[in-house]
């Protein structure tokens, strides 16, 4: 399959009702290199949440494909993003994954920079360097071409000509707002981070993040386990502490769906079996007053995964999660996960949110390990016959409708196509069309 064009890997024939992807798309090493160049180096890449860089000089390390970068709050209060690479001879500048460094001193030869990226010291400057040499080599930190933030989510792009972040997020914005608007005081990333490794291609995580079809199989064990725990512990006094298993086990009893939001962004949603179990339920009155009943229903009564092209999602189903999956190699992905919470929620809601997050979103939970296994096994199996076989994404084709459904209209969202039911693969078309466009484009 070496050198296969993305065109030949994505068989998209809307007129014939056919949409399929060749498995080589996941396993072919040459494609991976092309993805780094065509997708990650040109796209908006999620870097951090602004609550992680609240103080001046506070930074978070990130990456764009293989390129190390970091976001830092400058002395002027602005968030910037720089290549994590010393202008002198390339040493990485951040000392850790996150921290506060109002002055960034390169540990190698001692050049120093302020948090705005300006060089404030070249050791031995006058004796050792001519003015021309310093001008030629450029002593300030090299900024990443574009940085922008939408509702507190900070993104960066290496492409100076990339479209505006708002344009890129496009139709997915109302769903990002559903996370950002949960508290008038804003949202915060909680302490306690996690990075884990998946021996599978990063796109399997992109698909899995919006795949409602695996929930009843892979996560039935999660549902049975929490049911068992709740039976053992007796009914919790606080409804928020309960984990609703019904949305996993009794799909017939709830509404659900999936959307193509354009630009490769995908939505998957399900009504909660018991909305009282949502930690945000305590804010229902305030949220309905600010945003109306329709949006309150979306925020509280409906679980959502918001998968942003290519490798980032916001999940508000079991709990509130930010996840970023970083491509390391064609068959290796590093996954970062954080819990995002409304500032000012009650202690009981915070506790319930954290327990539910730990139940689902961590490599030590009772759900994510099963997902990781599923994706690793899918990757391994996709190697069969050199990836020649097709993933025929036909599930739900018959029920797909153009444009919005009633639920989307309630939010004022405008999907390109909708599917009534989370067990459908049609939202994936969004991702693969964007993937193909970028891989084959100029």
């Amino acid at each position, binding site marked *: 399959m070496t050198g296969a064009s993305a065109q030949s890997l994505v068989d998209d024939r809307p007129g014939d009702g056919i949409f399929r992807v060749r498995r080589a798309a996941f396993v072919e090493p040459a494609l991976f290199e092309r993805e780094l160049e065509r997708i990650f180096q040109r796209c908006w890449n999620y870097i951090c949440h602004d609550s992680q860089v609240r103080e001046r000089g506070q930074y978070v390390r990130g990456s764009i494909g293989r390129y190390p970068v970091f976001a830092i709050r400058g002395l002027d209060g602005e968030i910037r993003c720089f290549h994590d690479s010393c202008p002198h001879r390339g040493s990485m500048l951040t000392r850790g994954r996150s921290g506060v460094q109002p002055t960034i001193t390169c540990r190698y030869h001692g050049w120093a920079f302020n948090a705005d990226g300006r060089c404030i010291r070249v050791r031995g400057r006058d004796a050792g360097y001519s003015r021309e040499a310093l001008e030629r080599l450029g002593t300030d930190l090299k900024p990443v071409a574009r940085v922008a933030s939408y509702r507190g989510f900070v993104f960066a792009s290496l492409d100076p000509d990339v479209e505006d972040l708002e344009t890129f997020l496009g139709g997915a914005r109302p769903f990002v707002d559903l996370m950002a608007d949960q508290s008038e005081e804003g949202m915060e990333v*909680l302490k306690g981070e996690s990075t884990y490794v998946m021996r599978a291609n990063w796109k399997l995580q992109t698909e899995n993040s919006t795949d409602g079809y695996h929930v009843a199989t892979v996560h039935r064990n999660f549902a049975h386990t929490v049911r068992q725990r709740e039976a053992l512990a007796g009914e919790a006094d606080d409804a928020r502490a309960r984990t609703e298993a019904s949305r996993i086990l009794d799909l017939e009893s709830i509404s659900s769906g999936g959307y193509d939001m354009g630009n490769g962004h995908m939505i998957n949603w399900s009504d909660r079996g018991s909305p009282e179990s949502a930690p945000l339920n305590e804010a229902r009155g305030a949220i309905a007053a600010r945003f109306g009943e329709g949006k309150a229903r979306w925020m509280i009564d409906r679980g959502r995964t918001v998968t942003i092209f290519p490798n980032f999602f916001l999940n508000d189903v079991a709990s509130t999660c930010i996840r970023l999956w970083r491509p390391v190699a064609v068959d290796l992905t590093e996954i970062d996960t954080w819990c995002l919470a409304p500032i000012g929620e009650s*202690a009981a809601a915070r506790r319930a949110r954290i327990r539910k997050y730990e139940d689902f979103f961590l490599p030590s939970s009772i759900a994510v390990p099963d997902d990781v296994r599923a994706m690793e096994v899918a990757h391994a199996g996709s190697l069969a016959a050199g990836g020649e076989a097709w993933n025929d994404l036909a599930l739900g084709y018959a029920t797909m409708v153009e444009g919005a459904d009633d639920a989307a209209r309630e939010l004022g969202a405008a999907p390109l196509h909708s599917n009534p039911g989370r067990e459908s693969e049609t939202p994936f078309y969004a991702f693969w069309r964007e993937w193909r466009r970028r891989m084959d484009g100029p």
Partner: protein
Amino acid sequence: MSGFDAALTAEAADLLYREAWHLDSRDWAAWLALYSEDAIFWAPAIAGEEGFSGDPDNDVSLIYLDRAGLEARIFRIEGRDSFASAPLPHTAHVVGNVRAAETKGAEIEVSATWLVNSFRRTDPPILRAGRYAYTLRRTAAGLAIARKTVYVLDDRIVGPIDIFNI
């Protein structure tokens, strides 16, 4: 830990070794029986470069479970329906550097260091390491685990983490 009591350390070490043995031999009932009814099993998450998350009600932990939570984990393991946990890896716990001291209220504080090697045919071998902090309580039936804190040192986690491999 400040004080150190040699006799108590020997007694506590025996309990820690038995716990590790039960986990490695998958005798889940015997393992759970070592825990008091009000026991808490806590594995904080990494926070920043050198620290761990603190207050479990405000920070995210890797695992924070009461006894019903531990029992449910056994249910998950024994049900053999978890994609990640069937087949289970073979594990070998090595517990060392055990030190125990009595504290106020007749509870016993124990610190120790652990290593767990896990093997499963389809996966690369996994080595994990960390520290334990226990609070033990004397009961009619002997020492019981009232609280176990597991500091997991991996900040880039390979393979699933569960009660049997930390």
